[in-house]
C-alpha cells in the first residue's frame, strides 16, 4: 500500500522472470515450479516495475499512456500487484 510521503517501490522478485510465450501468444511470469499467465495490461504493469518507479509512478505512467483519469487505473494496479505479492512474486521496497 502506498502512503503519502513514503512511496512504495514494487519490483519483481529475483526468482521470477517475465517471458513471452510465443506459442500461446501471451506473456507469462515464470518462477520455481510454476507460472502465471498475464494479460497485456498485467505484462505492461510488470514492465514498469523496474525497482525505481513507485506504485504511484506506475499508475501515472499508465494513465498518461492511455489518457485515463480517475481512480480505476490505481485500483487495477494495486490489486494486480497485491495478488502477485501474495504469491511472493512481487516485493515492495521504498
Amino acid at each position, binding site marked *: 500500500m502506498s502512503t503519502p510521503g513514503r512511496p512504495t517501490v514494487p519490483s519483481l522478485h529475483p*526468482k521470477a*522472470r517475465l517471458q*513471452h*510465450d510465443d*506459442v500461446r501468444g501471451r506473456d507469462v511470469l*515464470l*518462477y*520455481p*515450479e510454476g*507460472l502465471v499467465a498475464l494479460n497485456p495490461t498485467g505484462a505492461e504493469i510488470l514492465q514498469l516495475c523496474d525497482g525505481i518507479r513507485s506504485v504511484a509512478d506506475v499508475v501515472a505512467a499508465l494513465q498518461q499512456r492511455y489518457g485515463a483519469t480517475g481512480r480505476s487505473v490505481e485500483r487495477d494496479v494495486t490489486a494486480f500487484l497485491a495478488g502477485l505479492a501474495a504469491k511472493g512474486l512481487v516485493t515492495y521496497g521504498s
Partner: protein
Amino acid sequence: MDPKPLWLLAELTYKCPLQCPYCSNPLDFAGPRFRRELSTEEWCRVFREAKALGVLQLGLSGGEPTLRADLEDLVREAHGLGLYTSLITSAYRLTQERLAVLKRAGLDHVQISIQGADAELSDEVAGTASYKDKIAAYHYTRELGFPLTVNVVLHRRNLHQVESLIRLAESLGAERIELANTQFYGWALHNRDALMPTKHQLDDAWRVVQRERARLGSTLEIVWVLPDYHEQYPKPCMGGWARAYMTVTPAGEVWPCHAAGRITTLTFDNVRDHPLDWIWERSDAFTRFRGDAWMPEPCRSCPRKTQDFGGCRCQAFLVAGDAGLTDPVCSLSPHRHLIDAAVAAVESAAGAVEWTYRAAPASRALAPFRDGTGLAAKG
C-alpha cells in the same frame, strides 16, 4: 483445442552416486534401454523443439545431472531459448565454482535433495555419505542468489523428522521445501513394504505441516505431496495424461511422465527417430490416454473425472494390471482392496523390513534384460 506441453523433465543420465531406495528411475535403469545417452547437440535440439511446442519450464534431472560434463552448455542453450531452468540435484561433490558457472550460464533455480534432517539418517537413506556436501551446496546456492528448493521424499523412516526438515529449510533461507510422500513406482514400489508409513505417522506429520505453514506464511512455501495410498480419491496425476508434461529419458525415449516407461502395453518413441511435436501429437504413448474417451467405469460417468482424470495410468498398470483401468487408489475402483492390503500390511508388520538400495548391480539382478543382449552380455 489440443493441449500443448508446458513442462519438460530432461533426465540427462541415470548414473547417480546416491542409492536412495525410493528412486523414481526405472528398475532397469542400468540396462541397454537407457545406455546410449543423448549427446549435447541432441539435447539442444530437444530443447529447441520443446520450446517451439510450448514448453516453458525445464527440469534438468537424472540420475544425477551434474555428472554430465556438458551441463553448463545445456543450461546456456535452454536459457537462450527463454526456458525457465531448474536443476534437480543431490549436490554430491557439487562445488561453488560449478554453481557459479551454472549461474552465469543462466540457470534459474536449484533444487537439492536431502534424505534426512541429520547426517546419520540422511546418509543412511542415501546409501552414500552426502549430507555434508548437501549442506555446503545449500549455502553456495543462496550465496549465489539462486532461489532454492529443498527436496525431501518422505517415508516410514524419516516422517518423524518433518519439523526438523522444515526448520532446516527455514534456516537456509530456502524459498520452498517440497515434502513429497513416497509415490510407489520404480524402486519405491519394489521397496514398498519398507517405505510405507503408518497412518499415525502421516497424521502427526500433517499436523506439523499445517502448524508450520501458519507460522511461516509466505516466507517458506511448504509443498506437501499427498500419500495417495492413504487417500480416498486418486491424484490428478500430471494434471492429466499428456496434457502439459513430458519426460525425455537419458537415451531419448519420451514418456508422458517419469514412471510411464514401465507400462509394457505402450509403445514409446525416441527423439532420435521422430521430432518432439510428432511424439507429442501422434505417438501411441501420448495419445492412448489423452482426454477421456479411454475411460472405463467407474470413471466414465463420474463427475470427478474432470478433476482427477482417472488418476494415474502407471498405478493402474502396476497395481491393477491394466493401464486402462481406474487408478486403484480410488475408493470406487474394484481394485481398491489391493491398495488397502498394502496399507494394512505395514500397520500389522512386527518389525522393520529391509530395503534394496538403488544401484546398478541390483538393477541388473532385478530387471533382467529381455532384448537378448542383457543376461548373456558381460558386466
